């Protein structure tokens, strides 16, 4: 059993080591949960060249497990961009991209792999009102952006509520004391900054204002969230934040908005449903109360939140929020969502294909289909059950977490 320690270390090593010759695999399972149609009983997945090449067996190293699901996609994994990478020069760092700052050597990638997460959205920190552009990356493989990147500039990070203003104070001697230059210190200020950025962009377009190149680039991106396909990925933990974000969406006609960390979205079901936003839920806390040390506040995440939203057709995704504790891992959130009444199929989708669709990477990841990336999670029992564990993880066709010693069916 102590092997587990070594195995994880191996996983982390594999994730950081240079590419070796690709091994072909045939993974047979009692049940394959594809997240694309019905589960396949007694199937075998053939993996070659990092891709799923067949679902009917083939040639390669054989592996037998109880169940397989696609690798998980976590949109709110809080992947490391360094502990203090908040841009302080401006609250609207719209044109900045997180791509340049991702730390591919952080130990936290190992945590994601151990949780079965193979794809994450890397987003700028949530402390600027309009924080910048997000990218979708793999959690393992060679530690370079080129090797791990799935899609660039997939969404614009925004944050509403108390978080962006927390820690801000009145300016020092070197900054002029007017709201046009200083950072917001209240919710009102945060909303004002958000609104001003959009207002400026729309006005510049309408009246053909002369603006400098930076401003023009910012405006172009903001207009893309209105006229084009760039989603706004906005952090809204409290009911109040959910309302504000949706009002802003309506005010400026933002086409695609995803509420991140939206613990209390279930309190505004009608509003959320009607507005057409997607929702990413944070990990379910043991007693329902989710503490927020930044905002000195707490939010209530009811167990049936995911079920309620799903029933109304709201696209939902679950998240492990960085998997800081084993309890936060994304697979356990799927279990909790089922405890709250979500069906197994919907829970599976909420950690795989649904988030992949939200970020437009469902052509590559999120389900087990021929031609897709070979990102797989191997289980020793029915996925998401409390009595089931993850015994292996494939990323791009490589076995990055290997617990073959204990692949026997759980219990008994």
């Amino acid at each position, binding site marked *: 059993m102590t092997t*587990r320690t070594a195995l994880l270390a191996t996983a982390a090593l594999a994730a950081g080591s240079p590419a070796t010759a690709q091994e072909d695999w045939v993974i047979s399972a009692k049940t394959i949960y594809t997240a694309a149609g019905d589960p396949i009983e007694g199937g075998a997945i053939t993996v070659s060249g990092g891709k799923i090449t067949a679902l009917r067996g083939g040639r390669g190293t054989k592996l037998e497990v109880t169940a397989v699901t696609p690798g998980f996609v976590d949109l709110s994994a809080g992947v490391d961009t360094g502990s203090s990478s908040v841009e302080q020069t401006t609250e609207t760092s719209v044109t900045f991209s997180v791509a340049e700052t991702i730390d591919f050597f952080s130990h936290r990638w*190992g945590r994601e792999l151990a949780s079965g997460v193979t794809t994450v959205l890397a987003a700028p920190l949530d402390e600027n009102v309009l924080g910048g552009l997000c990218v979708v990356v793999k959690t393992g493989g060679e530690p370079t952006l080129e090797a791990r990147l799935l899609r660039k500039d997939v969404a614009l990070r925004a944050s509403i509520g108390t978080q962006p203003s927390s820690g801000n104070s009145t300016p020092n001697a070197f900054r002029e004391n007017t709201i046009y230059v200083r950072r917001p210190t209240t919710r009102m200020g945060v909303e004002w900054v958000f609104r001003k950025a959009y207002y400026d962009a729309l006005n510049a377009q309408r009246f053909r204002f002369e603006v400098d190149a930076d401003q023009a680039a910012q405006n172009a991106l903001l207009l893309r969230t209105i006229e084009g396909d760039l989603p706004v990925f906005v952090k809204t933990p409290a009911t109040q934040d959910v309302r504000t974000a949706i009002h802003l969406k309506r005010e400026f006609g933002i086409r695609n908005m995803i509420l991140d960390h939206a613990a209390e979205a279930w*309190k505004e079901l009608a509003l959320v449903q009607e507005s057409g936003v997607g929702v990413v839920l944070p990990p379910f806390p043991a*007693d329902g109360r989710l503490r927020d040390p930044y905002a000195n506040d707490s939010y209530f995440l009811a167990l049936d939140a995911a079920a309620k939203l799903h029933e109304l057709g709201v696209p939902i995704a679950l998240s492990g929020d960085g998997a800081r504790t084993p309890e936060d891992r994304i697979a356990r959130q799927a279990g909790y969502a089922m405890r709250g009444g979500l069906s197994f199929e919907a829970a599976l989708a909420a950690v795989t294909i649904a988030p992949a669709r939200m970020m437009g990477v469902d052509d590559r990841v999120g389900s087990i289909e021929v031609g897709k990336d070979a990102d797989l999670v191997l289980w020793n029992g029915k996925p998401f059950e409390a009595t089931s564990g993850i015994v292996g993880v494939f990323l791009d066709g490589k076995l990055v977490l290997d617990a073959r010693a204990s692949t026997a069916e759980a219990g008994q």
Partner: protein
Amino acid sequence: MTILHTTRLLDMKTNVFRSLSFLVVLASSAAALQDKLVVEAGRIVTLAGDDIENGVIVIENGRIKAVGKAGEVQKPWDATVIGGSELVAFPGFVEAHTSNGMDRANENLDVAPFLDIRDSIDPVAFYFEDCLRYGVTTVNVQHGPNCVVGGQGMIVRPTGMTVEEMVVRPRYGTKISVSPKQGKSRATQMQQLRETLDGLRVYLEELIEAERDKRGYAEREALAQGRELTSEEKKGRSMEGKAWKVDGLELIPRGAIDEKQAPLLEMVEGRRMVFLNCEEAMDVEHAIEFARTNGFLEKSVLVLDVRCWRAADAIAEAGLPVVLEGGLLEMRRNPRTGEEEETFVPAILADKGIRFALSSEASGQRSLWYQAALSIGEGLDRSIALASVTTTAAEILGLEKEVGSLEVGKMGNVVLFSGDPLSITSWVERVVIEGREVYDRRKDVRNKHLLEGTQPRGTAAVAEAPVQEDDHAEEEGEEAKEEEAKDDESEDGE
């Protein structure tokens, strides 16, 4: 003015008394009704032999009278019957050690063996409520870990409005922390532990010497302290300590031993359970050594944080049982490589043949059922995982003949689950403690809040325009109707 006031007060008092006596009558009649209880279930997981399909449990006067297949077991005609074929019966879970359920679990005094946590237990603590919600029916409550020598613990049933109603074993066990109390170094902590038992020895020797000099000294001393000794307390007895003894204890009336020293003497004599708190692996060896040199090794239980697994060999060699706290996985950064390593601790303990119980941690949803379930997912043998929250936990507490499994003669503690007891989608529907139904999920408002939240005023419920177009929503109809329907359903189920 004053008179008026008093009269009113008197009135109020009588009213209070009236309603109180009414309550008492209600309670006792309920008790009388539930003297005989029959629990029916589609499956009974006895944890003593095979599961029973379509089973019946008969409980009389708080004890299990019969367990078996429906039709093979005689049901008393006058028994209350609960349960249903859709439910799964399981023994109540046993919490082998916790410091929850108290109003302030830690004491400022370093050495406080004379304290009794009876005075700190809060019967309406949310923790006890959660115990029922997740099927925990026996709880060993001990002094908090921030101590040198803590007060005397208690085994309770998590139901009742007074500690008297809750108590299963009073004055049970003493907490000793080998890890330093806040503000102390490890050296000071150990020094103070040794000093405490040295103090006991010196106290006993001096008392015996004084008694030898002057007959009746100890009794007069007790009297001076306000303790008049009854006939039994006047008798002396010899010391039974295994590791060390003082001669002449038989000269001292047993009631004359100072209250502060009496629990320590019980400990040294191996007549009191000791819960040794260790946070780091390095503490384990000190704990074992301290227990051995003072003769209570056989009465010791190690209360360990996950980091202590590194001392597994020493634990196995000493043969001590363990209560594992602080989770199941140890997550640790490798000091050399910086990589995060995880170790699943219960498997290591099982591997070394160490008897262990799991703990409900912060209670709530992650209670004992969940800890056992997760352990199975991590590869622990199913029977060991189940035992760690039932039978082994009971054994550690010396309650192996009382609780932990559904067998004739044991306490009638039964949990009815809505499905497989360890499934993520199962809920505890009913809980029976010693033949009395103490929990019914349909009446559990707080569980409803956890599951469904509470819709705050001013936020829109779903019932508005866009939803009604949806076929599915129409089926469900109005909220009130839906509620009714639900209730009906569950009534039918029984």
